């Protein structure tokens, strides 16, 4: 029974937080503020918990098994927090510089291949001739848009955008706008899926619980009340 009670309580909390967060779409109110602060606090707590978990599992465990070099990492990790000290904050730059160097090295060595050369290879490998007319046209358009967009982002050679050549930039913008329209529609889809997820939770898990159908209107009325500006509320009087 105890486990059941825990589940029921979990659903109630989750449901209330869901409804309270949605209320911001209509107007700011105290319930939203409460939910929002819970969110921010929980997020910080959650990442702290997983930070500790990671330090323990990836650092402490090998250290206890004899990898004594990890003591240095712990020291560096603690030094990261000198950033909050008024005069010794610069010490945190040492561990940070290792992280930054790693990040740059890992990203640069792969970016030049994955996002530059491989993209060039893939574009240059498109066939315009020797395929059916529609594919040929599509590939030609594809190549034209890639070239035009890269051309568009050349900034310091103003000559290449002057006069009739300006048409290339215009074409590039057309291509990008078509792409943005597609992205826009996909974002709508993503957000709606998320709303569906929450409403599905409310309707299939919360509302069937005993008392939920009675509680829901009360929750909504309280929320609407909280949306009324304080000076217009009959109670409590603003201080």
């Amino acid at each position, binding site marked *: 029974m105890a486990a059941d009670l825990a589940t029921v309580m979990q659903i109630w909390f989750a449901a209330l937080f869901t409804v309270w967060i949605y209320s911001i779409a209509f107007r700011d109110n105290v319930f939203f503020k409460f939910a929002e602060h819970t969110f921010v606090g929980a997020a910080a707590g959650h990442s702290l918990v997983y930070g500790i978990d990671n330090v323990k599992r990836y650092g402490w465990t090998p250290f206890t098994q004899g990898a004594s070099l990890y003591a240095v990492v712990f020291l560096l990790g603690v030094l990261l927090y000198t950033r909050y000290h008024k005069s010794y904050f610069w010490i945190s730059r040492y561990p940070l510089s290792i992280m930054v160097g790693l990040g740059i090295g890992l990203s640069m060595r792969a970016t030049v291949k994955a996002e530059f050369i491989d993209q060039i290879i893939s574009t*240059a490998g498109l066939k315009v001739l020797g395929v059916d007319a529609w594919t040929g046209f599509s590939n030609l358009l594809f190549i034209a848009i890639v070239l035009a967009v*890269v051309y568009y982002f050349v900034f310091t050679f103003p000559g290449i955008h002057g006069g009739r050549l300006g048409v290339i930039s215009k074409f590039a913008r057309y291509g990008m706008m078509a792409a943005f329209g597609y992205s826009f529609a996909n974002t709508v889809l993503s957000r709606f899926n998320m709303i569906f997820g929450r409403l599905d939770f409310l309707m299939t898990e919360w509302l069937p619980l005993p008392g939920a159908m009675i509680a829901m209107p009360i929750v909504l009325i309280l929320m609407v009340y909280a949306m009324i500006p304080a000076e217009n509320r009959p109670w409590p009087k603003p201080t």
Partner: protein
Amino acid sequence: MLVEGRMFALGMLIALWVLIIGSMEMSKRKLPTFRKLSGLEALPEMVGRAVEMRRPVHFTTGLGELTGTVAPQLVAGLAVLGYVSELSAKYGARLIYSVYQSQVMPLAEQIMREAYIKEGKIEQFDPEYQIRYLSGEQFAYASAVQGLAERERPAANIMIGPFYAESMLFAETFYRIGSIQLAGTARGYQIPFFAVVCDYLLIAEEIYAAGAYLSKDPVQIGSIRGQDVGKMIALVLMFVGVLALALGSSDLINLLKR
């Protein structure tokens, strides 16, 4: 020693290194000129219109920190803020800058003060009114900007920097109150929302170019110059590759794969 399949990439990386550092050095001697950025060209007119309508100009640099990965976007936004401050001082517009990062406030104040001094209008600069720290939390900041928009009804709204989910909210709110808008971000997911709503748009890399152009910093400008040459290399490789393939040769592609 050399790894098969990674040689061309290594060569390209070294070439880019030389190119970018070389153009930084060259820019110290002579700054290269920039192409027209249609978004920036619209700014004087936007500020002028706000003066005519006796309504303020609103500016935001979005979220992010000066120390994170999106810092370059924030820096670009601040460079544009400097320019808009100059324009506002010149035409006598009321400029309001909504701040998300408290660490940016002293920097922003300095930038804006210098702009007003440059235009000889320092007496018009009112940091209390013009620089508003709204909140350091995303949704609280978003709703505070919304509130500000509805109260002050700015005639122009300029958003340059790293924007997240609040982009659509801002764009729609200012659209509803009839502001002319210029927006730019390099955060790919948010560009479509700005493209849908805003009158003028700086797309992705354009904000860095705008920031560098306005700041006249040889390091930034030189870096952009180097990247431009890199883009031209890409253009040539793609163009020649397509032609060669049409003529039946895939030598270039094989070279790139080495």
